[in-house]
């Protein structure tokens, strides 16, 4: 292997172990590796440009917006009312609030198309509410993080569009249809796993009779429910893009919590703003750094050489497919989703097509693999946002994440083995 590969991986691991902030570790290891190919000034200038380019995207605005609206909803009583309403629906189930969380994240991720936005919008208010109902903060965070990624598969999904472009020809409409059933399957698996986990750990307040309050709670929640209606309705009927919906959500929750519910005072507003700036900046530094690192990886041709190395082991189709899945999981562990799709689709697609796997099916497999990568350390943007929102650390959130990883793997296996889960809907709805 090339010297720059060794430098990159070794320095990354060393810096992580020393507890250097992860964003700094990522950027520095890319920087050290690039020094072997370019002079000092070109290296520093290129790294600075790649970091800034990493956050120079309109779609990323969804992150600050939904972080801000999430905090406002939590502080301003909107969240509480929504949760009280949702509890009416899931009262009798073990882990009821976990289900509410998963459903909300799935729905929100599906509509907004951004897992990070879903984690910040939903996690920002559901995690504190779950804590009130005696769920552990770590478990609540883990549920939010994993459930938010299901929206990558359920349309509309920008990442499936990126895949279509990178594959040079798969229909976006077909990919969108293909994503529904696998996305729902992942959400179901997560529900089963978290239901069992919550039951074992005894999370959740025992159910009480609340029949008299149903009407009052529903009425109470109406203005808050209108926010959901506004965001989702506005996107679906084309009044605004998912990114713009974030700004609308901020404005509505600001007006509702400050002037109507009057539960947020001016002083608290400045705190909410500051918290949002911090959480946004933490995530943005990570995105900036990892996009610089993935640039260095491509520049040094590292993805190609690693996959060549792995795929040279066997010609057996099952082993090749297994290798590709392992590689994709590893890739998702280090790289962000969009660069991963851009770099690896052209490498893997011809191989799997030769094995007789349809490009639609492979697209779903690839996105699910990378979705799992969004919630795994060392690099996982959704995991990081979850930790900041849920005010917990990586080390503490891992144990409750384990059963949820298992659930996602089970879903992945089912989706790989049953191609018709992905291909059936497109085949009947597109002639």
């Amino acid at each position, binding site marked *: 292997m090339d010297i720059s590969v060794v430098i990159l991986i070794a320095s990354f691991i060393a810096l992580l172990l020393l507890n250097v902030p992860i964003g700094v570790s990522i950027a520095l290891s890319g920087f050290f590796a690039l020094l072997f190919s370019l002079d000092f000034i070109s290296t520093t200038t290129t790294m600075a*440009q790649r970091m800034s380019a990493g956050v120079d995207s309109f779609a990323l605005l969804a992150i600050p917006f939904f972080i801000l609206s999430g905090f406002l909803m939590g502080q301003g009583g909107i969240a509480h009312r929504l949760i009280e309403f949702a509890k009416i629906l899931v009262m009798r189930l073990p882990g009821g609030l976990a289900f509410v969380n998963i459903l909300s994240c799935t729905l929100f991720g599906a509509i907004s198309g951004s897992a990070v936005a879903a984690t910040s919008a939903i996690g920002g208010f559901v995690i504190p509410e779950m804590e009130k109902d005696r769920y552990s903060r770590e478990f609540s965070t883990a549920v939010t993080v994993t459930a938010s990624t299901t929206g990558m598969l359920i349309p509309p999904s920008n990442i499936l569009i990126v895949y279509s472009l990178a594959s040079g020809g798969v*229909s976006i*409409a077909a990919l969108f249809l293909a994503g529904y059933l696998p996305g729902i399957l992942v959400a179901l698996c997560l529900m089963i796993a978290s239901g069992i986990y919550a039951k074992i750990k005894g999370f959740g307040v025992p159910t009480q009779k609340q029949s008299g309050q149903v009407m009052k709670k529903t009425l109470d929640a109406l203005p808050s429910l209108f926010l959901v209606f506004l965001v989702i309705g506005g*996107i679906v009927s*084309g*009044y605004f893009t998912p990114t713009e919906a974030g700004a609308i959500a901020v404005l509505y929750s600001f007006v509702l919590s400050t002037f109507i519910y009057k539960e947020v005072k001016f002083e608290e507003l400045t705190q909410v703003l500051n918290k949002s700036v911090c959480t946004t900046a933490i995530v943005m530094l990570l995105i900036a750094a990892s996009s610089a690192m993935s640039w260095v990886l491509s520049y040094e041709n590292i993805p190609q050489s690693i996959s060549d190395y792995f795929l040279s082991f066997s010609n057996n189709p099952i082993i090749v497919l297994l290798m590709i899945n392992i590689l994709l999981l590893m890739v998702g562990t280090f790289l962000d989703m969009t660069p991963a799709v*851009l770099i690896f689709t052209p490498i893997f697609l011809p191989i799997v097509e030769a094995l007789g796997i349809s490009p639609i099916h492979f697209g779903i497999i690839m996105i699910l693999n990378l979705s799992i990568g969004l919630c795994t350390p060392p690099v996982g943007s959704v995991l990081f946002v979850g930790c900041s929102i849920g005010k917990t650390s990586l080390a503490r959130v891992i144990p409750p994440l384990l059963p949820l990883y298992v659930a996602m793997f089970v879903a992945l296996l089912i989706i790989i083995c049953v191609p018709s889960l992905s291909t059936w809907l497109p085949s009947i709805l597109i002639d």
Partner: protein
Amino acid sequence: GISQDVKILKLAHGLDAKHPVHLSMVHFAERLEDYSDGEMRVKIYPSGQLGSERELIELIQIGSVDLTKVSASSLEPFIPKMRIFSTPYLFRSSDHLWAVLNGSIGEELMKAGEPYRIRGLGYYDAGSRSFYTTKRAVSSPKDLQGMKIRVMNSPSAVAMVKAMGGAPTPISWGELYTSLQQGVVDGAENNLPSFYLSKHYEVAKYLILDEHTSIPDVVITGTKTWDLLNDQQRKWVNKAMDDSVAFERKLWEKVSQESLAEVKTAGVTVFEADKSQFLESVRPIHEQIKSSDLGELYNKIREVH
């Protein structure tokens, strides 16, 4: 192992590996290796792996990327003269366009980048841009009235759609497919291969061939890279680029025809436009350009036959 004497050029661009531009780049790489007898090689990074067009131009200036292909409109913020290409109906025909590009004006525009550390190597055909819409067909500027049309993030594109009566709406390229689908915008504009390859024809079922602008692609290198090449190497690069340009123009023509046929098969209704009405609607833009600092260049282009 590659010996120390081999010069490797890093070439990055934003299109996928099936796009005619990429194939022409591959052709360039093959010719260069041929001419130089293996002394020069090209490593190609497709699909925007190394950045968007604007970012790639910066990387060329920095010197970490050697070559790229960008639209002339992406060069506008770097080389002000390139704004001229965004003028709608500037060229009377494809022949007129190529007479300009292959003549002294084309040469002059290539050289205009030198103070900005950019050196043009050749023009690729990028066809003509036309409108496509989702809800109803457009046959004249009148039909564009009140329609939200996605444009590139540039003042010239905004001014053009405004002059034609539409509502120019900047949406990022990545968000465009869903924006068309959900109805955030009613239409967009691009060349035929992009309309086909972006799959926008799945949601936009009306295409009108009004061919309002013909903005060429430009293959550029940085003066930083260029200065490091010796005369012999520069000759090889130029020669290989000439071959690649000829190759691209033929391939582009073929792919455009194929794209048109494909979108028709996919159920897109294609209209021929009465271009005179569109041309009439953008007259004010021509007047404005004539009286601006680009006036001289404008007149010179119009005089070419």
